[in-house]
């Protein structure tokens, strides 16, 4: 796609070797304004938080292995699922693709030297880390960490004696970090595109980040003010959310979901963008329906802002609200369906190499589809009434967020790994780990659909004996999943330390990041690339292969 001559003998120090400031060692990282180094800072801290939250998830599942007390008491259980939610949502899934891989690759994919506000970018990371530390530190304070669930529903979050305020403050700070990243990305996309890089020549990952960034900028402030109000309410008792002073708990839920539903799209959109990158590369052909996928990202961002109250169908809203929100909920499924159909069509008549990144993407499509279909059962009113607040919702949510976005993050790690670190991991081990992770994952979450339909409520420390078979299968699934994750990360770690040197373009990608040195130099390109074609121009593979034969 770009005409950048890059003789291999002119290798320059890459971004891992030199930094943007005069410091060496750790300060060279902590004070660096290089978007790639910041991306890696995000990657390492995000994975650390992920490991912590997986630990909480493991304990939750272990506790649910048998009815009654298995390992932890009810209070600890309630705190664990709250921490699991807060960390996974605000510190793993939301920053996972945009802040790590968006930071690293958005400027490169646009042919730019950096994001437009590099120092603001570093500030975002510091806010992220401060917020994360606040969230985790509440665990060590007297009173213990919050036991409200990550939704902080009032009035329980006003009454509990646990440390709710640090958790709220953490989410507030993390929201601010997310907003700054969004502002940076939108402005970068508008201002930093290389010559010839029109909007419709941008890779679809960039499109998805653009849509995501808008949701980050326009929806996050609502959660900021809402959580701030809960803090103010706890400190001063202004009455806004306290029903004993006239406050309305349902209004809190509206405000919470005005952000948190679109936030689901903040989480899934970049993963969809990633899928749209990976499939053409491994099928060696152009994406099917580029514009439809690009516009469906914007459509998802728009419709995603219109449907929040479908989380509140049992709250006793007006019938009008029930009608409107259910009706529009079905519309948000359409752009997602369009994407899935286009992805599968892109595999048609490709020349497919099933390497680990593609395998994770295939799992993504399967699991995200299940998540989407079960969303239909939750979108229809009468079935929603039965399924709301049961483990069916937990399964649906995890199928979209973990089976979707989580697998998207894993795919991204395997896809861009050689470019980021200049080394390669073991493909066979990675494939085996993918198989284990996929099996463990489905074993963990699928039984929850069934038990939820049979009436197993969510956030239950204890349960009726008839649900035990489902919980047992699920817990065993969690062990398999965690084993697979350990193998996966161990393999990546080993590749990073001592894997063979990776070539510039191991998968045969044609977006700009594959035209620059591996690992990239500090300002990404020796010469500003000029773009002359669309992002997935694989015609040279077609013609080269024909000539070769």
């Amino acid at each position, binding site marked *: 796609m770009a005409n950048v001559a890059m003789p291999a003998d002119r290798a320059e120090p890459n971004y891992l070797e030199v930094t943007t400031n005069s410091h060496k060692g750790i300060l060279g990282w902590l004070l660096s304004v290089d978007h790639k180094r910041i991306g890696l800072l995000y990657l390492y801290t995000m994975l650390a938080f992920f490991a912590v939250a997986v630990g909480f998830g493991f304990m939750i599942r272990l506790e649910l292995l048998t009815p009654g007390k298995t390992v932890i008491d009810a209070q600890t259980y309630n705190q664990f699922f709250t921490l699991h939610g807060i960390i996974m949502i605000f510190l793993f899934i939301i920053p996972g693709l945009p802040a790590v891989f968006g930071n690293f690759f958005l400027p490169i994919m646009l042919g730019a030297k950096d994001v437009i506000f590099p120092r603001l970018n570093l500030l975002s990371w510091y806010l992220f880390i401060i917020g994360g530390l606040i969230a985790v530190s509440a665990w060590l304070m007297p009173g213990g960490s919050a036991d409200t669930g990550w939704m902080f529903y009032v009035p329980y979050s006003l009454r509990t004696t646990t440390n709710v305020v640090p958790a709220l403050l953490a989410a507030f700070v993390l929201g601010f970090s997310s907003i700054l990243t969004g502002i940076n990305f939108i402005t970068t996309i508008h201002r930093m595109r290389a010559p010839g890089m029109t909007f419709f020549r941008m890779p679809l990952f960039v499109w998805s980040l653009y849509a995501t960034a808008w949701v980050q900028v326009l929806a996050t402030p609502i959660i900021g003010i809402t959580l701030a109000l809960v803090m103010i309410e706890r400190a001063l008792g202004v009455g806004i959310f306290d029903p004993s002073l006239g406050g309305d708990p349902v209004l809190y839920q509206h405000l919470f979901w005005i952000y948190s539903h679109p936030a689901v799209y903040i989480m899934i959109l970049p993963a969809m963008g990633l899928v749209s990158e990976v499939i053409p590369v491994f099928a060696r052909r152009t994406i099917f329906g580029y514009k439809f996928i690009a516009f469906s990202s914007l459509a998802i961002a728009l419709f995603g802002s219109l449907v929040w109250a479908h989380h509140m169908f049992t709250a*006793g809203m007006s019938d009008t609200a029930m009608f409107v929100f259910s009706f529009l909920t079905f519309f948000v499924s359409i752009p997602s369906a369009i994407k899935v159909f286009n992805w599968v069509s892109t595999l048609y008549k490709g020349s*497919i190499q099933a390497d680990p990144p593609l395998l994770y993407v295939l799992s993504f499509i399967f699991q995200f589809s299940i998540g989407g279909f079960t969303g239909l059962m939750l979108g229809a009113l*009468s079935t929603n*009434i*039965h399924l709301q607040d*049961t483990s069916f919702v937990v399964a649906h949510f995890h199928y979209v967020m973990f089976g979707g976005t989580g697998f998207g993050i894993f795919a991204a790690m395997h896809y861009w790994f050689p470019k980021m670190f200049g080394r390669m991991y073991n493909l066979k081990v990675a494939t085996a780990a993918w198989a284990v992770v996929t099996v463990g994952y489905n074993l963990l979450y699928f039984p929850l659909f069934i038990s939820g339909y049979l009436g197993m409520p969510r956030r239950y420390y204890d349960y009726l004996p008839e649900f035990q078979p489902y919980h047992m299968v699920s817990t065993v699934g969690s062990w398999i999943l965690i084993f697979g994750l350990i193998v996966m990360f161990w393999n990546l770690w080993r590749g990073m330390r001592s894997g063979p040197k990776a070539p510039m373009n191991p998968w045969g990608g044609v977006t700009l990041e594959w035209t620059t040195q591996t690992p990239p130099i500090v300002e990404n390109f020796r010469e500003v690339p000029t773009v002359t074609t669309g992002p997935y121009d694989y015609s040279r593979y077609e013609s080269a292969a024909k000539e070769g034969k």
Partner: protein
Amino acid sequence: MFTSSSSFTNSVDALFTYIVVLSLIVLVGITAAMVYFVVKYRRSKNPVPVNIEGNTTLEVLWTAIPLALFMSMFYFGWTGYKEMRSAPADALPVNVTARMWQWGFEYPNGLKTDTLYVPAGRAVKVLLRSQDVNHAFFIPAFRVKKDVYPNKVNDAWFVSDRVGRYDIACAEYCGLNHSYMYSAVQVMDQSDFDAWFSSASAKAGVPAVLAAAK
């Protein structure tokens, strides 16, 4: 679990099955196509890709067909829900009070119980209030659920023809013993119910008159 039914059980299950069947067809289709393409067009067998940019007819089709199906799901969901919202005028009103972590029931004559006794075949309307935080009144077997708030009265209704005892659970997280906030609804024959009602009322010292809201 499926042994009993309320008036809603059948309609909810029917819609659920409808969506599950449609979803399975599409899911199997997508997955099979995906796996088939990956195997059939693997690079060793198919080294030369064909670049297909897209197909507007297909895009229109796979926008319009799902949309039509989704609209049918929405429609059945809405009609099913309308039914849940229209309690008959002669439904037996029962005040339900939720507090951490118990359910309390009060009949029109002032009789208070901790299990919900109802006559089979008679519509029952529960008026839900909370004394502290949010709860949710959930009878899985009847497909009935409604949140319970401290500052307003929500309501729900059901009618069950089948005698038996069914769980009532709290479905909105409410703190420490959320998972123990169970009670039960006991569906009895009209004659058993009348006998129970007069003896329980006598014991509680309230007149055994079941003044239903007409």
